[in-house]
């Protein structure tokens, strides 16, 4: 069963703290998005293994874009 990490708001990806294949825990810091000169952390929604990451550093994302997929 996989869960997706959605972008909670529009902005630019300024940090990616997870890797494909890594094991992550719920509430771990996954990404940092910059919007309105503010950094917003996006957290992992569940425990699991990172199946794929859809963005790279500097990408501009919209609200609800899928940033990564986690296999729970």
């Amino acid at each position: 069963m996989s869960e997706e990490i959605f972008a909670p708001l529009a902005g630019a990806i300024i940090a990616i703290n997870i890797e494909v294949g890594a094991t992550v825990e719920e509430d771990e810091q996954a990404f940092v998005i910059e919007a309105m000169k503010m950094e917003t952390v996006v957290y992992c929604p569940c425990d699991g293994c990172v199946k794929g990451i859809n963005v790279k550093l500097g990408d501009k994302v919209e609200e609800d874009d899928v940033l990564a997929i986690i296999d729970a």
Partner: protein
Amino acid sequence: MGNDLLAVFQMAGLFYLTPGMLMMWLIGSVLIYLAIAKGYEPLLLLPIGFGIILANLPLAGLMEPGEGLLWRFYHYGIQWEIIPPIIFLGVGALTDFGPLLAKPVLIFLGAGAQAGVYLAFFAARTIGFDLNEAATIGIIGGADGPTTIFLATKLAPHMLGSCAVAAYSYMALVPILQPPVMRLLTTSRERTIRMKKGRKVTQLERIIFPIVATLVIILLVPAAAPLMAMLMLGNLFREAKVVERLTHASQNELLNIVTIFLGLPVGATMNAEAFFKPKVIFIFLFGLVAFIVSTAAGVLLAKVMNLFRKEKINPLLGAAGVSAVPMSARVVHKVGARYDKKNYLLMFAMGPNVAGVIGTVIAAGVFLTLLG
């Protein structure tokens, strides 16, 4: 030859310095320090601070009516009410009304947060300020620099400098002033309310909004026309997506150029005679009260609205009705995140934030209609 040398010596401004001027140099320097060392609204406070120093240099005549360089910037840029509306053209080009259109109910928070404006108006009246002065002090609570400058120029030009400094200083202090008020008026459960996502806003809506808003607001409050027209034109540029060169110029070159010519003459109006009046301390006091009451009013209004709504609004959003864009929206997000780190309030907070800009312009238009 000796006489000429003596004349040059005697015309040095040095001998005409007064203690008042030296005090104003200090004040100007403090603003420059706050801008550079503390990052307080540097785009405005730096030129304002320097303008204050320049206006308090004897014999330089920079603010000499009819002749002075800074007087010309002031007269043609500010007294002719050209620069604040052009700033608003840039603001409109930078503003995204999407979050407001996605959750239109948030417009009430932008309106409610103007309560501080009216409270400060009445408070200033009781102290003894006349109607025009009280209105100008009140509008500081709208947290909008160009609107404050626009209204002060029309109603109380002798207070222009002080009101502008108060407005920009309190905007810079929003991260310090707002959170205690927000925490005092909300329960921990209310602070963690998650907002349901707003509806999708179509491109057509984004284009129609500035046109309709212009018509509706200017028909109701014609005195708000200069600011509202330029704000909505800038926004139309942005949303039309076919005039990217104009949008870009409005957001960047034009906005940056007029910002230079806004701060400098505003600071230059603050000479020692104008500033060292006992009344001036009340400008800063009531301006602060206006900010705090506006924050409280926005939060309380959200709580009242929740009594009638199935889908609750996080009351913290009310504080974003104080239209220091995007500072108060950021503050709302940060306060919310302290209690629930996965509560992403920023984009929701932009709704009341941009609504507050419109609210403040309307409040200024109302004052102008009644008093101008």
